[in-house]
Each structure stands twice: as structure tokens, then as C-alpha cells.
């Protein structure tokens, strides 16, 4: 491994990282919660909740497949719970 050179910029970056670590996680968690809610709205039809705009949200599915996979893993489901979507 090569010896890393220390510069003032790097020290400031390290300092910032130390102090913003817990705050960054909190902000990410909040964003994730919002995303989850959005996901729920988009897939509400499949859960039996009527959704008047499902025709339009259909277009979003290709964009959301990756995120959907992460989501069901996080929710403790190893395989996709929905028949319509085969991500894994």
C-alpha cells in the first residue's frame, strides 16, 4: 500500500466526515422512508388498494425494479412477494 499524503484539504474532509456521519445516516433514513411510502403508493393496486393513477405509475416500474429488489430484501422477504415483478 502506498503511503497516503496528508494535505489540509484531506484533514478537513476527514473532520467533516467524522462529525456528519450520524447526521448523514439520519437524513438517508428519512429519504428512504419517503421512498418506501412512494413505493407503497405505486404498488397499492397489487395489495388490493384501488389506485386511480395506476395506469400512469405502470410507466415507472422499469425505473423502480432495482429499488424494489432492495426494498423487499430490507423488509425481510428473500424473494419478490409480487407475481407481477420478477426481480430475483
Amino acid at each position: 500500500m502506498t503511503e497516503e499524503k496528508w494535505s489540509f484539504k484531506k484533514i478537513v474532509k476527514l473532520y467533516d466526515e467524522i462529525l456528519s456521519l450520524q447526521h448523514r445516516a439520519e437524513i438517508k433514513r428519512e429519504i428512504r422512508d419517503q421512498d418506501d411510502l412512494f413505493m407503497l403508493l405505486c404498488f397499492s393496486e397489487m395489495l388490493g388498494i384501488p389506485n386511480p393513477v395506476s395506469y400512469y405509475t405502470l410507466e415507472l416500474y422499469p425505473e423502480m425494479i432495482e429499488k424494489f429488489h432492495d426494498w423487499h430484501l430490507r423488509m425481510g422477504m428473500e424473494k419478490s412477494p409480487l407475481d407481477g415483478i420478477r426481480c430475483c
Partner: protein
Amino acid sequence: MSAIVLALAGMLVFYLGWRYYSKFIAEKIYRLDPDYVTPAHRYRDDVDFVPTNKFVLWGHHFTSVAGAAPILGPAIAVYWGWLPALVWVVLGTVFAAGVHDFGTLVLSVRNKGQSVGTLANRLIGRRAKLLFLFIILILVLMVNAVFAWVISNLFVQFPASVLSVFIQIPLAIWIGYKVHKKSKNMLLPSLAALAVMYGTAILASHFPVLQIDLVRYFGGEESAGLFGLGATGSAFLIWIIVLFAYVYVASTLPVWKLLQPRDYINSHQLVVGLGILYLGLFLTNPTVTAPATNASTDVPWFPLLFITIACGAISGFHGLVSSGTSSKQLNKETDARFVGYMGAVGEGMLALISIIAVVTLFATQADFLAAYSTWDAANGGGLGNFIVGAGQLATGLMIPVGIAETIVAVIVVSFAATTLDTAVRLMRYIITELGSEYKVKSLTKTHVATTVAVGSSAALAVLPEGPNGFGSGGYLLWPLFGTSNQLLAGISLLLITIWLKKNARNYLVTLIPMIFLLFMTVWAMIQQVFTQWATWGSDSNMLLFGFGAVILGFAIWIVLESIYILSSNKDHDNIDPSM
């Protein structure tokens, strides 16, 4: 004697502890494995589980555990002289706190990053959950009541600090908005906010018109105030109402709006404060005027010293942070030594400088003994003495003493206010959890739970007559803070011991501090509950007797449970077999 000698001696022991003892524990006892896949990698989700650089993680760990408590405990404990406090802070950090913080981190890493609360729940059973909830509820209740008084007291004593503290709130909201909505960097705005706060503090200490001095507004200490209280009592009442109104709002807002940016600004203050104090110490070279041991005390140091200095040496809360957030972000298992052990050492350094600031404050030994004449005086004056002493140390950096005192007061108030914010929020969560556990639906509502939390804390602060005058009712329960905190540490040490025993390793390194801690805690409690607070005691107090007896019951239960678990050969299947 020069105080630098004390600081160097303390640092030398910390260094030796880190260099040799923690190495021995890491290699021979916890047997850290550089190839072990840590939860940060296994369950990586980039939110909670994120592999993090060890220096960054150490910084996070240290700033999360350091608050007002490592300053408050030692500043009171020098009542028995500097020697016992120093010895316990130094040795306690090396042999108890380091092992505890480091151990909870490793135990959690080997158990999917679960917290000690969850592990205790699984290991000792559902009763453990109730115990945890109860201990934490009592802890936060008294933290709320005491810290409200502490902050009000600092506002009354150091009126120049008030404006800076208030200015922080709009600044924090502004930063929160910038960061959250516009994804801007937090570093520059928070440094600017800090500069504005300190600038205000300097201005306020020069111009009395900027000092919000309620006692002066009422016409001085001797004047009458509201509701038959004196001017000082009324000032306390107003500050306590203002503080609880503030925490009500702060604890119900989303965290990113106020609490987070506030915490972020305050984290810089820790760095600034430690830097000023240690640099100041080496530049001013003050003399220790306090006695090494103080024989003329009305309360014995043994065993009370060990529950008075809580966070400075060992603290159960560190285990909660170690196993709560730090363990989920550990990149390599071998980093645990640096993060866990050095985190405890950082806290020890804060306690060390707190002791030094107080013992070098007074011109002569007689002055010290006059200020620390009784246990109640030590309790009430400890923090104020720290601030004045720290102000003197800061003069080494050419900072005028008045300004230095104001800045130190701002730092301490900010720490205490952060603790207050978090404690009220925590209390709200616990009340909500109890509400859903016992199916009291109304308690699960945010505003109902917050009202109960704020109302009970305020009532505890204001209604009973405390030892330090009006508003200090929280101090009635304060003796229980140390014991419940040490109990939490005892439970964590018990969990580590069980884990080590199960793996047929030398578990004496955690068993000995556990026995020591529980022995001191139970002894101190028996002494207080049965000879002091009981109806037949010297200082009868039914409130303390009731709470104390319950906590004593829990303590004895834990002792019995640990004897049973450690002496039985039963396999504890609940622990991950891969450990």
C-alpha cells in the same frame, strides 16, 4: 504541585492501557479476526449498515458519548479530594470502561449488530426488557429535571451566555433547511454559526445590555419576584418554563429541522473546548490547590465515589451507543480496538481535564474547602466551579477571563441542552412503547406522549423542594442516576462475560470489573436506601426510598441472575453459534 504533572500522569496511564492492555484483550481475549465479515458488510444498506473508516467511526463514537455528564461527575467528586477521583477516572477508564465499551462493540458485531438491550432480552428473558425500560425511564426523567435546573442555573450565573445559546436555534434551523432541502454541505455553515455564537458571547460579556439577566430585571437578588418567590426563584421558574416549552417543540419536530444541525454545531464545540482546555493547561501551568484527600466530609467516599463519577470512568450509556450504531458501521473487526477502547479513553480525557479545572481553581486550600464545605454544596456548585476553573485555564491562550468563562458556559449549556433534547425525545418513545405494550392507545399519540414526558419532568423539577433551592427537585432523584447507569454497565459486562465463558476464554477481564461495579452499586444503594432515605433513616425521603428500593431490587436480581447463569453449565443457545 503543578497540574501538568497530573495531566501527564493520567495520559501516561491511558497510553499504557491502550498500548498493552487493550492489545492483550484484542488478541488473547476477544480474539479479533481481520477476516470476519462484519455486519456493516453483510447487511450493508448504506443507511444503518455502512462500512466506515475507523478514525471517522471513533469520532462519531466519541462525540455521541461525550456530553455534560463526564464533566459534572468529576467536578462534584473532587469533594473527597483530587486523588480518589483521579485514580478512579484513570484506572476505571483503563480496566473497566475500555473493556466494557470495546466488549459491547465486539459482542454486538458478533451478533448481527444487535444492541445490548435486544441481547439481554434474548439472553435473560422478557423481564430484562421491562428492566431496561424502567431503568431508562427513571434515567431520562431525572436527566430532564436535573438538566433543566443545571441550564437555568448557568443562565442565572452566567447571563452573558444566554443570547449565544438562543441565537443557535434559528441558525440551526437555517442549516437544517440548507442541508436537507438543498443538499448543501454542513461544515462551512456550522462553523460560521459557531463563530456567530462565540462572537455574540464576546460582545455580551463586554456589553451588559446584551446580557439577559432575569435576576437583575427583578431588581437584584434580595427583591421579591413572582408568586411569592424571590428574584432568583422567579428567574429559575421562568427559565424552566422556557426550557420545557422549547424541548416540547424540539422533540416533536422532525430531527433534521433542529436537533441534527444543533448537534452538528455542538460537535465542533467539543473539539474547540478540549483543545482550549488542554492547550491552556500546558501554557498556564497552574498549581493544584485542592487537597489530595479531604478528611472533613459529611458523606463517605467509599462507595459513593464510584456512582458519582459515572460517565468519566464507566457508563452503561456507552454500551448502548457501542452496540446501537457503532457496531453496524465497523469496517473490520480489528478496528473495534481503536473505536471502542479509544472512545473510552477520549471520555477519560474529558473527565481528567474536568478534575484539573476544578482543583486548580482556588487560590488556597482553605478556599477550596470553603466552596466544597458540604456534600450538598459540592453537588450544587460543581459545574459552576468547572466553568470558572476552565475559564482560568483558557486565559493561557490570551483569552480574557470573562470571555473565556462565557464561552465555556456556552459550551456546557449546549451539551446539556443536547442531552435534554435527546432525553425528552427518548422519554416520548418509551412512553409510546409502553402505551402500545399495555394497549393504552392515547399514549401512543405524539403530542400526548410528549405532554406526559414534559409535564412529569417539569413537575419533578418544580414541585418538590430540592437541595439547591427552587427548581432543583430533580436532584432528589439524582443519586439514583449513577446507580442506574452503573447497573446498565453491569448488565453489559455480564453479557460479555457469558459470551467469553461460553467460548471457553479467560473471562476474568470482564468478570472482575462487573463484580466491582455491582458490589459498589449495591452497597451504595443499601446504604442510601436503608440508612438514609427510609422512614427510620437519617434523612427520610419516601420518594427516593420508593424508587431506590425498586432499583435495588433490580440490582440484586441481576446479581442473582449472573451467579446462576455463570455457575450453570447450560448452553445459551440464544447466542449466535458462529461467535
